């Protein structure tokens, strides 16, 4: 598949925003969030920027961005529509928390709003993952690791930003539990991604003979294509990117989103995280851009079987 930049920006940035919102909401609901007032508003606003920037980027993928509101109507069958609805609904608890934190409420109302925000944020990421998981035509996206990976990456990248904020703003030390949880999440994400690549690489490639239903006659080879020039189909779905670079890019992604954060957290624990944490959050996002680019670029669409297998 052609790795479309608006979709990559959307899934990475909004994912981080929803992960940040989810953890902030959970901490508020469990009454373990150490800050109040502006201490809540700043990460909430930063999550708002990430989520909104991603959503705006995603409309650049549309042929008719002005009609994007129409995507809210078919939530009964379409995961894309559900995601649109969920993304808008998630703004409600975020705004509620903003108002409650601004007004200085510390009672049950902010706990309920926190739980509501965490739930909606998770639901939106689940919808995003299911858009890809539901496409039968792309085998690499139907492997079981896709949903946990989208959730894990959202929580990891958002969690690093929340940790960065806490490390900068919190007067008293924030304890070991949260950075250690992030460390564990980074290791888990790397292992799950490795399992994803292993499974996706083994997905059988449908042959041309199978696609045209004449496999039983013998070996089928494309002899002449339907057009002299590239078409929408060949550009969008028969996209074969330099697979020879895939091993290097995979390593780069894992180093950025998992290895460096793990090392960074380990270093930060004894020495203090204030200046390491934001760097780790940025590195993780960069790694996820590479990871998401590969998620699209390496995925093979079933329609490619009609065309000559081009190697790059």
């Amino acid at each position, binding site marked *: *598949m052609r790795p479309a930049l608006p979709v990559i920006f959307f899934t990475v940035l909004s994912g981080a925003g929803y992960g940040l919102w989810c953890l902030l909401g959970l901490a508020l609901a469990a009454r373990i969030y150490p800050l109040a007032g502006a201490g809540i508003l700043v990460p909430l606003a930063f999550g708002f920027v990430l989520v909104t920037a991603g959503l705006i980027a995603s409309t650049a*993928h*549309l*042929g*008719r*961005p002005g*009609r*994007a509101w*129409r*995507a*809210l*109507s*078919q939530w*009964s*069958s*379409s*995961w*894309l*529509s559900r995601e*649109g609805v969920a993304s808008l609904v998630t703004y409600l608890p975020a705004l509620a928390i903003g108002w409650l934190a601004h007004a200085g409420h510390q009672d049950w109302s902010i706990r309920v709003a926190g739980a509501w925000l965490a739930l909606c944020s998770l639901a939106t990421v689940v919808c995003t993952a299911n*858009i890809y998981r*539901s*496409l*039968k*035509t*792309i085998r690499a996206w139907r492997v079981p690791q896709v949903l946990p990976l989208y959730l894990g990456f959202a929580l990891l990248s958002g969690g690093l930003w929340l940790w960065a904020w806490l490390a900068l703003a919190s007067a008293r030390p924030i304890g070991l539990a949260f950075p250690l949880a992030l460390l564990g999440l980074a290791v888990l994400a790397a292992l799950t991604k490795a399992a994803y690549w292993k499974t996706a690489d083994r997905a059988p490639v*449908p042959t*041309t*003979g*199978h*696609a*045209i*239903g*004449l496999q*039983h*006659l*013998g*070996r*089928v*080879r*494309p*002899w*002449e*294509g*339907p*057009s002299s*020039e*590239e*078409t*929408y*189909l060949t550009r*969008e*779905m028969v996209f074969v990117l330099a697979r020879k670079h895939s091993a290097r890019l995979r390593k780069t992604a894992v180093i950025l989103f998992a290895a460096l954060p793990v090392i960074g957290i380990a270093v930060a624990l004894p020495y203090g995280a204030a200046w390491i944490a934001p760097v780790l959050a940025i590195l993780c996002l960069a790694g996820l851009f590479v990871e998401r680019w590969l998620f699209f670029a390496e995925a093979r*669409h*079933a*329609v490619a079987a*009609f*065309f000559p297998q081009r190697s790059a």
Partner: protein
Amino acid sequence: MTALPPPGKKKLGLVIDLDICVGCHACAVACKEWNDGGPLGPLPDDEPYGAEPSGVWFNRVHSYEITGPGTGDQGPVKADTLRDDPVPGPRSPQMVHFPRSCLHCETPDCVTVCPTGASYKRAEDGIVLVDEDKCIGCQLCAWACPYGAREIALPPAKPRASDAGRKDSKRGTMQKCTLCVDRIYNETLDERDRQPACVMACPTRARMFGDLGDPDSDVSRVVADRKGFALMPEFGYAPVNRYLPPRPRRDGSSAASIAAPAAEEMLDTERLPPLLRWLDKALSR
């Protein structure tokens, strides 16, 4: 609406005979011509007269080469006949020309993934259509189709001065075969012309149009006779269109070995002058 209608009795579709299709692309051109100018036109192109013309076609014709025993070709194998091929094959591959267009599936995901309800299946005849006034161009339907039936009309890379101010309602929306819905019910056309443009244009009558939901229709009968098949049924989309497989070539004889004895048979010894007839007899001993 994006929800699929309850299964209907009428299933309009095409039957394409891969045995007689000659790969002339007349169906694709006729399709482009009708849909560029008919009531639903124009079908936009990008740089149609430029160096790299690009545009939406509802129908595209591939050509394939098949080598193997299933083609009836038992001829001797020669490694050097297909030089770029590491696996030596029979001498004469069979050519199959393969028109590819929307199969108007009964349970397609291209309809259910649509977030706007622009992609829909008609309950009354099963035709899958896109409402261009609702489509937001998210392309998820094209991603969901394993048959490559949908192409988006992208905005032109280099807007031309002549296009300024022109309202092109199709730009940015998904396009696909309509089964010529603006022909088949069009009462201003002669009754025999109420068929898809591709079917009308086919010079070898390799394309047939009809109701595949009616077991007694001409198309259903030819599908039953010739063992017509659906493409990639494992996706579960239940395509309506059917393809008729190429007939096997003469059993046990490759095209090459048919050609050699044919040259000999052309020598009708009865018609030779006596001297040559004696010579033929003498040499044939």
